[in-house]
């Protein structure tokens, strides 16, 4: 590949049209254009506006709460500052700006920013005539955010159930959240997600090593591929193959993220105590007919 060919390909694909909203509103997508290297499109502009709005809410809230009180000294206190959830009294209603309203606005605009980023990826996929795998995976990741910040607080009937936004704040929230349900390690979906993330890291390193270990070890790429397969078959008795490894990684990631959703949504609305959850297990096993 030369730079000329890459530029040639880019010049072929980099033109208006094929977007989600093309020819549906205004007879065309008005914002269907690039800024420098970035494709923007209508979703990009909405995303930028949402990012600006969310950041404004964060900065205004931080300013009002005194997180930036030492502004002139240059101590912005980014680590200890926080945008906190509304107090319980506001329930699912609208809270005043400095008592959680900033958190509500930040969550709304952040969710809009994430979603429009995914839609912008959909537009790019359509322009390049690719599958939608990346935006689908990203949407699954957004669902983990939405589970914590929107779905679960809604089911609990109070925005105060959401996660505080801030470096220390979200760590402390996570710590307390685990203790509130007695032992987060006994949350089965937490265990599955944890296992998923770590095994995913193992798969990732195995895949990276396979490619870095074999590329340009021979003139013929078929010989290099033979080396990949031979290695894994000798090593563990099975080679999943070039296509298979990417499909495994993809669905493994989806599975892990869905477990993140279950992990959070069950905590509170459905399960109050993850240690007690396991109490069902012992009588169930004990009462198996062949163990009587």
């Amino acid at each position, binding site marked *: 590949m030369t730079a000329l060919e890459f530029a040639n390909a880019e010049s072929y694909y980099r033109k208006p049209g094929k977007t989600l909203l093309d020819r549906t509103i205004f007879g065309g997508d008005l914002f269907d254009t690039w800024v420098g*290297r*970035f494709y923007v499109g209508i979703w990009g502009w909405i995303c930028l506006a949402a990012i600006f709005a969310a950041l404004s809410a964060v900065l205004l809230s931080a300013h009002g709460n005194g997180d930036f009180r030492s502004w002139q000294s240059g101590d912005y206190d980014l680590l*200890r500052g926080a945008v906190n959830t509304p107090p319980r009294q506001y329930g699912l209603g609208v809270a005043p700006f400095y008592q959680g309203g900033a958190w509500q606005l930040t969550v709304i605009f952040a969710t809009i920013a994430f979603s429009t980023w995914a839609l912008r990826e959909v537009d790019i996929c359509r322009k390049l005539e690719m599958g*939608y795998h990346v935006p689908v995976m990203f949407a699954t990741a957004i669902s983990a955010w939405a589970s914590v910040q929107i779905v679960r607080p809604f089911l609990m009937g109070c925005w105060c159930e959401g996660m505080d936004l801030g*470096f220390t704040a979200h760590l402390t929230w996570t710590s307390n959240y685990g203790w509130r349900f007695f032992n987060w390690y006994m949350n089965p979906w937490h265990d599955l997600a944890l296992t998923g993330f770590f095994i995913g890291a193992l798969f990732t390193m195995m895949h990276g090593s396979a*490619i870095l270990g074999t590329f340009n070890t021979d003139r013929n790429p078929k010989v290099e591929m033979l080396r990949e397969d031979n*290695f894994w078959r*000798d090593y563990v008795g099975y080679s999943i193959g070039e*296509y298979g490894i990417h499909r495994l990684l993809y669905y493994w*990631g989806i599975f892990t993220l869905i477990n993140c959703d279950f992990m959070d949504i069950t905590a509170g609305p459905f399960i109050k105590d993850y240690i007690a959850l396991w109490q069902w297990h012992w009588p169930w096993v004990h009462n198996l007919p062949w163990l009587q």
Partner: protein
Amino acid sequence: MATYIDQYGIRVGGPQPLPPKPLEYAEPSPLDGSDPLGVRIGKPFTIPFLQDKLLVDGQFGTFWLGTFGTLSIAFFFAGLVMWAGACLAQVHGHLELFFQYFANVQILPPDGGLGYAPTLESGGWWQWCVGLFALSVLCWLGRAFEHCRRHKWRPWLPFGFIVPIMWMGAVYFFHPVLMGTWAEAPQLGWYGDLDWANNFSIRWGNFYYNPFHQWAIASLFGTSLLLGAHAGTILATASEGSHHEVAEIKELHSGSIKAMLFWKWTMGFNATPKSIHVWLWAFPAALGTACFCGIMANGIFTDNWYVWGVDHGTVKQYGPISRDAILHRPLAVPIEVDQPGLPRP
């Protein structure tokens, strides 16, 4: 390389699906003869009715035995049998109770100093099991190195494997040795493992405030982000052959060009078929390194991560801290261990 445009889009070299990969081995390596246990067991096979949709280009068999592999498997099963036997003894040899309490049975490290446990029941089983599992893992590492030589791989895989091995070493060996007691190490059991992770965090003042734990979480989620982005990108362009990655490193085709353009337009930056795999190797390596540091730093940096965070400005102080109570306490507290109350036969 020809670039042409047809009704389906631009084709740089055009899609070039490679023929199905043969189930055959490259020429034998000089290493093969020098290994007394160097035999391949089994035969290559595929499962035809699963191959189309589920396994696609997956290949089963054979398995190279080899001295390192045989030793590794032998050590692992020896440790496993020892663990199962010791746990079975805890439920008085009742197999059904063993299955009933499978998640609860565990063997504990000795709660004294660093010497041999006085008896097998007071930690000797744990020392033997950990030793056997360590030998097993190290032999498997040796197997990775010898396989890289046999199949002419650069040794990225074994060097990557060293990172989690160092983490395991920190958890089971280096950190307990520095603290002067095996009791710092995890017990061996299903819930025991989870309980250790839980208690270890509290014992060192909440791991959420441990900067290496923070780094490790960021690396873990970053690894997963790369995993999802890479796998999604390749699957989305695999119809144009982007999954033939070693071939794409030599010469880009339309699938990989689309993959690169996607990320260039999305975030202003794109990797290449080669460099993305450097990212995929380096992020898990950073993860393991952070995990290693996060274990080793306990008792070296601080005895309490909350206090450390407050002192270093990374954590908000929620209330008064009694430093004497938190920091000046004995490091190794002997633990009274209650075995689960089991019904007598």
